[in-house]
């Protein structure tokens, strides 16, 4: 018994250093040397200022930007507090929230479901191509842009399935809005 305890303590200490310190530090070192941007969250700079991560969604509510999905992370897209809504399918709170989103986003037609449902992480950077197309008429009006031109921009921004097979086609909302600002800056 005593021998087991001594071995346990020694084994814990030695392997803790190997698995808990050496292993993550080696991975960090090599990743930082070989894949720096990816290892640091693919931050995007504009005019010398960091304006976001290519992987993390941001809140957009103004009519001149494409909107992302409702977010349950903190007060919305809080990337230090990721979370889903965790509301179940028979939850009254879920129905009320979706009704509010439908009112806010509706252009008369039925809204693509991802645009009015909260994501799992609360940080989903993407919306479906359908949800992006749904917003084209509003954004085009606000930005004084031709709808056809804006539809083209959306189509160019679509990320297809990986290898044509994996996942779902999607539109990165921050990427689309940055491209939109380049195409036709917001008039203030």
């Amino acid at each position: 018994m005593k021998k087991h305890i001594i071995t346990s303590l020694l084994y814990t200490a030695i392997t803790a250093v190997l698995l808990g310190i050496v292993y993550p530090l080696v991975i960090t070192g090599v990743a930082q040397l070989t894949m720096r941007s990816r290892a640091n969250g693919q931050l995007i700079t504009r005019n010398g200022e960091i304006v976001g991560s290519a992987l993390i969604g941001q809140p957009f509510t103004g009519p001149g930007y494409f909107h992302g999905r409702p977010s349950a992370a903190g007060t919305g897209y809080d990337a230090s507090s990721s979370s889903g809504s965790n509301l179940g399918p028979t939850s009254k709170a879920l129905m009320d929230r979706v009704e509010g989103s439908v009112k806010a986003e509706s252009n008369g037609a039925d809204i693509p479901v991802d645009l009015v449902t909260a994501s799992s992480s609360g940080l989903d950077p993407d919306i479906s191509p359908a949800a992006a197309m749904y917003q084209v008429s509003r954004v085009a009006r606000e930005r004084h842009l031709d709808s056809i031109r804006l539809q083209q921009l959306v189509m160019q921004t679509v990320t297809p399935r990986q290898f044509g097979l994996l996942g779902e086609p999607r539109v990165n909302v921050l990427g689309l809005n940055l491209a939109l600002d380049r195409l036709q800056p917001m008039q203030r």
Partner: protein
Amino acid sequence: MTLNGWLQIGLFIAAVLLLAKPMGSYMTAVFERRKTFLDPVLGPCERALYRGTGVHPEEEMRWTHYTVAMLTFSAATMLLTYIVERVQLWLPLNPQHLANVEPALALNTAISFTTNTNWQSYTPESTMSYLTQMLGLATHNFWSAAVGLALAIAFVRGIARREMKTLGNFWVDLTRGILWILLPISIVFAFALVSQGVVQNMKPYDTVKLLESQKVTGADGKTTTVSTQTIAQGPVASQEAIKMLGTNGGGFFNANSSHPFENPTPLSNFLQMLSIFLIPAGLCITLGQMVRSPKHGWAVLAAMVVLWFAGTLTSYWAEAHANPALRGVDSHSSLAQSGGNMEGKEVRFGIANSALFATVTTDASCGAVNSMHDSFTPLGGMVPMVNILLGEVVFGGVGAGLYGMLVFVVMSVFIAGLMVGRTPEYLGKKIESFDVQMAMLYLLIFPLLILGFSAVTVLMPNLGLSSLANHGPHGFSEILYAYTSATGNNGSAFAGLNANTHWYNYSLATAMFFGRFMMIIPMMAIAGSLAAKKSVPATSGTFPVTTPLFTVLLTGVILIVGALTFFPAVTLGPVLEHLLMRAGQSF
């Protein structure tokens, strides 16, 4: 359901089955201490580790010694994690200056990671420092998985050996599992994850300027302007790799594998699901090879695939349907959207990958999530719950899945023996009353903990019900799921439940602790008993364990035991909720 969805699911299971044989053969070589291509590098490390810890690798252990060594080691690792959590503020690698973790939560988390559960009552990015995640939590992802592997191998030796008192050496099995299997695969996998965008750094959280400032009304009714976003960072990829490979499932971030920094692309998602099943599928082949009956390994694997498919089909079908209560919403699947029940799911994964992930993570005792099970449709959410209730033997956790499955195998041959009125035999070993008693003990501890704790909790409005996020039958499901997940050492959650209270932290910790260790003891007792038995030659009356008939019987026994035990409880949760949802009820 779409053709593309089924193609992705088909590709996934094809990859699992293709890798099972090479993985299984490699593990056989590792645990039978035969030559492998990694020996030149790892051999010296192994010998140095034995010297440094006073292990005599040739020493054989009886089942009692093996179990005691496992228990003392688990206790030592648990202690380390508890201490690191309690003093993290004074240790390095804490750029956000996160406070020391309070005792109830620290204890719950230490037990959670020691037992391979990875239940998380906390939000990691605002609770655990980088050092705690690396040294206190990721280490357990290696240790607890290697412990599971070692126990499974000991059980298999119990079947394979004849008239022997010993099952191998715990320290040797543990070491070989870590050095030859978990660590090398994790290193490769971690780099693959970084290449997809999983972050790996030690820097403080980034603050970025929002493109569009937001007016936000807080809970106190005050409106403030938010113009920046704080982005949590950390050494994620190194932890993510072993989190999946070791079927641990404890997320670096609160949103787990749905967080874009943990699981950024469909490929990273595919690899994560594959890595959950990699070792459990391979272990079936290892079983077949070590007991000199390869077909038996495939027969067991076949039963797992059947149950996996049933779960995936149900979950995918349920989630592809819209929530009927939502109005003015287009939930049809098309080329431009995946449609279905998208609440709590990520667009890049859509319905197929979310339903598949939920099935895989609960078939195995992983518990990582890429979508929120709490927001699944009632029947879609029932699948993960039922998967755990069946004992997580469908592939199952690393090691734990195989030894759980083997207990069901013992039950199956016992029942087959009863049906024809012969003494049941399993691979030449007579299954006698002691073995069946231990198997029943293993099978009964599980529902006792789940149903007992759930029943007590729903009777306590202040301690139990006040933590619920949803009401009606869904609230009951949240509680049932929590104790199911804890006892089954899964760690996924109907995460609306606020489990960071004294009652939940302590009761779930108890469920996790006994759900792991109290089930290991009878399992190891069976292994010890089997190892000591004589081998009797097979006769025409022996029930073969290599045929499709055996696969059907095994599947049937698992389903019948699960249904008899848990049907009433499941009826009060997901089944009732499904009926009420159809009737248009809300809560």
